[in-house]
């Protein structure tokens, strides 16, 4: 077990190093930082001075090492666009994104599991077939188009829910939460649903597939043969058996949701990390882009490693075969 733990952690560290390298490439080669930071009237002397100050005259490897060292300490420099400390910018926006992802995850489980169970048990009923079709529809419709239609319907036409932003937030330490005020909770509804739709269909399909698989196994057949009521068989035995993969995939998907939230955040003007990133891309604000990449990948890689380790703990057979691939179902 310690050997596996070490191997998995080393693997994660290697991946993070590769991601850092990618971020460094962006920082170093997408646009000349000197040109981006100075205005057009700057003299050659100012340019050279800045080049030295940024360490751009040093060797490539040394620059990369410095970059990794700084990143590890959370020092990503200051944003070109608004001259604020990049790490602070990202941590300020993290709560907004995280709460959105939390709501979406909750919705995906609360809606996806019952639908999955139903479509598995009544696999030939008309409703189950329609639900199957709707689930394909859910994967096929782009989330930004759905978001726009939601705004048109619920905010403009019916005026039920807010169209943008987080509403009132309460500051608890460095964390800002929208859960504690009515307007904050209302603001979470539309973006939460938009972000969760893809996830709901994913969970539903997964539960359905797992249930069908489990119901063919001997122990379920045996339970049936014993004359246990269908309800007990379905829920106490079959569903319980397939919850583990559902929870794993949900855990792994959180990383993806954080990234995918950037589309939802753009549509709903949600002041999270994703919107920060999209704005950074249009303004070619390299330090923010690089930092966002590292932070999101870090969350993603840590979750993957954590899930792998948990799995290995629960099921020793899996210790040799990492399952990180399942994470990227999207």
């Amino acid at each position, binding site marked *: 077990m310690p050997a596996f733990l070490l191997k998995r952690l080393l693997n994660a560290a290697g991946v993070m190093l590769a991601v850092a390298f990618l971020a460094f490439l962006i920082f170093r080669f997408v646009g000349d930082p000197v040109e981006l930071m100075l205005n057009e009237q700057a003299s050659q002397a100012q340019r050279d001075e800045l080049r030295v*100050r940024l360490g751009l005259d040093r060797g490539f490897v040394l620059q990369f090492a410095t970059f990794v060292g700084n990143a590890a300490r959370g020092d990503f420099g200051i944003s070109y666009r608004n001259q604020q400390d990049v790490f602070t910018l990202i941590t300020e926006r993290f709560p907004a994104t995280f709460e959105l992802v939390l709501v979406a995850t909750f919705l995906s489980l609360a809606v996806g599991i019952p639908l999955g169970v139903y479509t598995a048990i009544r696999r030939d009923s008309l409703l189950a077939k329609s639900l199957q079709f709707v689930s394909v529809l859910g994967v096929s419709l782009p989330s930004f188009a759905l978001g726009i239609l939601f705004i048109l319907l619920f905010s403009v036409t019916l005026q039920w829910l807010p169209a*943008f*932003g987080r509403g009132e937030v309460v500051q608890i330490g460095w964390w800002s939460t929208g859960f504690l005020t009515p307007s904050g909770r209302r603001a979470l509804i539309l973006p939460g649903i938009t972000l969760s739709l893809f996830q709901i269909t994913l969970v539903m399909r997964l539960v359905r597939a797992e249930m069908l698989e489990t119901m063919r196994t001997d122990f379920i057949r045996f339970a049936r043969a014993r004359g246990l009521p269908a309800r007990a068989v379905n829920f106490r035995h079959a569903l319980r058996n397939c919850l583990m993969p559902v929870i794993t995939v949900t855990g792994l998907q959180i990383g993806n949701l954080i990234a995918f939230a950037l589309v939802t955040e753009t549509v709903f003007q949600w002041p999270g990390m994703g919107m920060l990133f999209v704005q950074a891309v249009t303004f070619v604000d390299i330090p923010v882009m690089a930092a966002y990449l590292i932070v999101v990948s870090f969350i993603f890689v840590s979750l993957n490693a954590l899930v792998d380790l948990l799995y290995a703990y629960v099921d020793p057979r899996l210790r040799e075969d990492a399952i990180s691939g399942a994470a990227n179902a999207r």
Partner: protein
Amino acid sequence: MKKHWLLAAVAALALNGAAEAKTLKWGASREIASLDPYSYGETFTLSVLNHVYEGLVRYTGDLKIEPALAESWETVSPTVWRFKLRQGVKFHNGNPFTADDVIASLDRVTHDTSPLKGNLPAYKSAKKIDDYTVEIEVNGPYPLLLNDLTNIFIFDKEWMEANNTSLPTDSGKGIKGYATDNTNGTGPFKVESRRADAKTVFIKNPTWWDKPQHNIDVIEFTPITSASTRVAALLSGEIDFTNVAPLQDLPRLAASPDVKVLQTNELRSVFFALNLKDALFESDVKDKNPFKDIRVREALYRAIDIDAVQKRAMRGLSRNTGALVAPAIPGYEPSQDVRLPFDLDGAKKLLAAAGYPNGFSFQFNCQADSLVNEEEFCQAVASMWSRAGLKPNLSLAPRSQQTPKRVKGDFDVISFGWANEPMIDAYSLLVQVLRSKSGTGGVFNWGNWGDPRIDALIDKAGVELDNSKRIPMMMEALKIAKAEHLFIPLHQQPMAWAMRNTVASTVQASDNKPRLWLTMLK
């Protein structure tokens, strides 16, 4: 920390004795770059921060210069101005406003690393005469110092020194400045809290030196970049006011019983500028530059069906123009405000006469997020030029991506808007855009346009203090530019604000800057 601010806000409101705080929720099209007016030389950021910081002088609602932190001024010699400062003014932290603050602010804004340095081009030095008198010396006789000073905001010296922010934020150093997140001005509002990209809250400054002509207690400033979301927010009452209402949504906004629209023309004139270097940037004509032929420039001009642009792309709200500056700008001449008529056949004949009967291709650089409906009018004009036989390659991208190309001169035609702010004088366009590049002149002359006759007139006008002589010089320079078709004028762009009925009155000046200290709520 945040809680502390909240308490302060509550206390401030209690002091005002207001039964309920009157709040204006302002939805803007973009975030202000920083709370430090000197860290980013951008007009919109300055206009928002003008609620917190003030200059020695300011514009009134109808764009006349009036005293602000300076009570009066005189010219001691052609190059020395003496300002009498207002007494009894206090910064938001309670510090008194004195001559030292003015000197420290001028030092900061003209420092080498200050992005705003160019906004005070004539500045040489400043000295304190006594606590309430300051003398500013300029490079040479310079008529527009007051105009420039409207946008040079005054900081508190003690506060800057205590917080180690006496120099402007230098992005190269990779350290953010204290003033980027904190403010201490003299203005009608003070910053209560700020979450960048989400909400910045301003509250009324109860000890403002001027008699308030507003009844706002709290301003909540929220950037909403997506135009459609902004409109939805206004319709549903999540915001009360926006200073950027999309033209295409005005009919719908106006039709709502809860919303009213304020619409007028901006000072900003929009025109096309051409690459007049020796060769085109991207064209099938390699050996020479067709734009150097005045017939080709005239053909481009005549091919534009300005009425169609005005009616469709600009929704009937722009003001077509033949001049390069707006009527409100000194230097404008009605006789020059006449367009060449739209004449497609004439344009084709001119092109043929110039040796391009089949046209030629060129790169046409427009920005997606800069001028009003720029995407729309650029596409419309590109299709009009195509019909004249030309082959414009339209490049449309956000400003941040287009600006570097423009500055480098990597374009053949660009759309260009110039408001002559903060000077409100044609000299701004002349010296910064039309003049050939030299020293501080022609900073925006990206395409090597210009004319020695114009340069000479500009240089003469720049040192002439007598307006009755100076303005004719500028008119003469603009006349030459027009006769040569150096630029192809289009229109003065429209501006539209929209607000809920809770806003009783406000002042919409043609510089498109909200002045909420002149705004009454119901």
